[in-house]
């Protein structure tokens, strides 16, 4: 009931639809209501004022009115803290699903007013904004659940300054989406065999050129376990070998056949990360999208993960 009322209220509040940045907070989209402290304070002042009126005690009445006037000024002042603030930019680096998206928000202002103690919130997460004459930036963590394009939620910019008696708030609803990569599979088998014949020979050459050790994963050959090194640790360590330049991987959709749809995507994401870490060139072929040619590096990784993130869900895929 209360939640329904709250939803109804939310739907009345401006902005009613997503907007392009920069968004300037004007008077008509800033809301002010007393905080609990403000209500308590108002009750105190009301009691004082009524008593003073009853006894015609003018100093007491002046005292109550002085406080009430200052409280009222703080109400307007809280409104003014927000009004004129401009939300210039919002950006976020893509993260794997499940990890918090770090939303970077750049704020500015049209005027030179002193602003302090602003708070930026969305859902359960919030962050305090340091605001000076040139504006301010804030980094708001947003929880992510699933891969794909995540439309940004309504962000709430609020303040209880200057006295904590009133809270002014305004919503910013950026018409922007953040990309969320698929979460890489945690327990994935090692990278598949490289494309072409040359690759096989590379594996059998194992034993030379130890590059570094990594944690054991199911499917690793017992031969490759570094027993001596593992004995010093609690977990099994596996040798990884330097790969040759010619060692090229083709991460193809059918390689993951037999797994559920989403897990196939997560495994490919994992393999992309692994290949990137091991410095092996790789290509990605997934249905519904143009194949991504061989490559290596941050831009290539981003391209592959983006393609994976944007893959349609199973139902659409059929």
């Amino acid at each position, binding site marked *: 009931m209360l939640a329904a009322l709250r939803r109804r209220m939310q739907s009345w509040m401006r902005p009613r639809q997503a907007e392009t940045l*920069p968004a300037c907070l004007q008077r008509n989209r800033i809301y002010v209501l007393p905080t609990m*402290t403000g209500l308590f304070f108002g009750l105190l002042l009301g009691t004082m004022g009524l008593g*003073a009126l009853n006894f015609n*005690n003018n100093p007491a009445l002046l*005292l109550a009115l002085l406080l009430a006037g200052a409280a009222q*000024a703080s109400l307007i002042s809280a409104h003014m803290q927000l009004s004129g603030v401009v939300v210039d930019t919002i950006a976020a680096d893509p993260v794997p699903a499940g990890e918090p998206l770090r939303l970077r928000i750049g704020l500015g202002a049209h*005027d030179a007013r002193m602003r302090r103690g*602003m708070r930026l919130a969305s859902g359960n997460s919030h962050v305090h904004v340091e605001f000076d004459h040139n504006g301010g930036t804030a980094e708001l963590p947003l929880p992510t659940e699933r891969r794909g394009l995540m439309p940004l939620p309504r962000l709430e910019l609020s303040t209880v300054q200057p*006295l904590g008696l009133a809270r002014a708030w305004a919503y910013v609803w950026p018409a922007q989406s953040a990309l969320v990569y698929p979460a890489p599979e945690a327990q994935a088998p090692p990278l598949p065999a490289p494309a072409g014949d040359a690759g096989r020979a590379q594996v059998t050459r194992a034993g030379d050129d130890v590059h570094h050790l990594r944690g054991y994963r199911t499917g690793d050959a017992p031969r490759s376990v570094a027993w001596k090194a593992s004995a010093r640790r609690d977990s099994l360590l596996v040798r990884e070998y330097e790969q040759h330049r010619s060692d090229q991987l083709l991460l193809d959709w059918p390689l993951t056949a037999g797994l559920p749809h989403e897990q196939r995507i997560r495994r490919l994401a994992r393999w992309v990360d692994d290949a990137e870490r091991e410095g092996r060139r790789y290509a990605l072929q997934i249905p519904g999208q143009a194949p991504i040619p061989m490559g290596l590096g941050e831009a290539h990784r981003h391209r592959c993960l983006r393609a994976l993130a944007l893959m349609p869900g199973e139902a659409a895929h059929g």
Partner: protein
Amino acid sequence: MRVRTHALTLLAAAACLLPLLLQLPPALGLGFGLVAILIAIASWRRRLPFLLRLLIGISMIAAIAIIAPGVGRDTACTVLAAMLALKPSETSSLRDGRSLVGFALFAPFAAFLLDQGPTSLLLALAAVLASLLALQQLAYDEAQVRIPAAYWRQASSGVLKLVALGLPLAMAAFWLFPRLPTPLWGLPDRAVAKPGLSDSMTPGGWLDLMNDDSPAARVQFFGAAPSREQMYWRGPVLWDFDGRTWRQIKQLQYMPAAPMQAAGTGWDYLIEPEPTEHRQLIALDLPTQVPGGAFIALDYSTYSTAPLNGVTRWRMRSAAPAAAEPELPLVLRQRALELPTGFNPRTLAMGRQWRREAGNDTQGRADASIVDRALAMIRREFAYTLDVPLAGRNEIDDFLFDRKQGYCEHFSSSFVVLMRAAGIPSRVVTGYAGGYRNPVGDYWLVLNSDAHAWAEVWLPRRGWVRVDPTAAVAPERVFDTLVDRQPGRIGAFDGLVPMFNVGDWLRRGWNDFVLGYDAQRQQRLFNPFGKNRISSHGLILMFTAVAALALAWMAWLLARGEREKDPLLRAWHQLGRRYARQGNGRAIHEPAEAWAERVGADVPESGAPLRALSRRFSNARYAAKDTSELRRLLRDLATHRP
């Protein structure tokens, strides 16, 4: 809570508590203050255990019950002070801090119920500012605001700004918000009475009052003022004597004033008594006319119909009597001759002897000669002093025959007993004598130290006649003619007297404009504009209008900061807005000159000047600074119209 926040919160609570503590009995005030400080120190890091708090609370209540017993307004305020002194023991979170500040603000409010003097006012103002400062700091804490380097300057200017902004609204509400003509519920009495003129007098009991240099009343005369020697401010009239104490006859209040013939035209004056919480008023000599809400009792003492809890003003007329109550009813005559049996045998014997020697006549000549004889004796043998020993059983005898020293209470009560013993109806009148004229504001100030007691004797045909036996001995003590009784004077140095005069004049203005402002004064607020009475509907309407204006002013002042700070950009944006009204606004991403080109293609006639303006704007903004060009550009931008 940060350390600074904790400290500021406690400081605000202390500032709130201070004016209240000053109003309590000194032992309690000092004790509670110490307890509050100790508790604040002990609970700095963590809450005190509940049992300890309970124990301290109980002992504080016990202290109140012992030192100031009784149930009344002052007791309630004392309990509030005790609770507030205890409250810092549980201040750890922001919420605790806020509730501490909120509740603490009741303390200055309670102090005002006990005292509305300037000290309380100044302290309360300081308390309000400290509380706002603490609230602001609590809000900083909530938002984890970094503390700026110039903290005190910024924080205090922020608070002062808020108060200044709220002031017009507060003032509008103060003057125009409809007041209650009669209280909805009464103000409880104090459990412990303040010193002042009371309805009884025990000789030797007024020493506190006579050393109290605070004002008792201020009087402004319209027309002639009486000479200082005529200034007898009549208070309670005391008839009954039980050997120790003189008392009023309460029933006389309910009888109309006795008939009286005035000598001369009398005096017209406005008297403003300080609040006494009694209904007793004071009036010059014999009052002949009092305003509504006041009445004159049979013995010419005046009363208000309601206790004087606040500052009040009374426009009265008084006159010296040619004959006051020339016919004395028998009941009153007997009452005015009554003496307790078994007290003061020597005085009674002397009175009877004097009567035998003077004889009896209906003209009252014998009575007058007895009065003169007594005055002559007093003038010859007696001396004035405030240093008197405690009264014995036969106090009048001791005074008249052995000690022969005392002050007005002794002189007047002994004189009346002696007169009664001689068969002359007489009574004690208490009140004030003399006054100090404040040249600033031209009004008279009656101080509590002017408290006085004199006698009235009833003589045939003349009625009640005032006799002041004290003035026979020490007129300078009665009328303050000595320079060293000047208020504000310290020893031989009278440089502070002008300051005192101005200070008291300000105090009177404050009393007049603020303390004495009530429903009646509010209704007369628009008298100067020819409107005699405003209905409460009219007041509410006016209040709403003025409050709306004040709110709009607040909003405007605060919004003014929204203006673009750079004048060039401001003018440029204005220009853009003018074009936007014609549908040719500059898009936010559009460079100045590209915009001018686009507009020029659209509206050829404003194209060339706009192109020139935008080029000059770009130059001024991004190229070298040239102040005279900047000034010209600003003017051109302001005058250009699409």
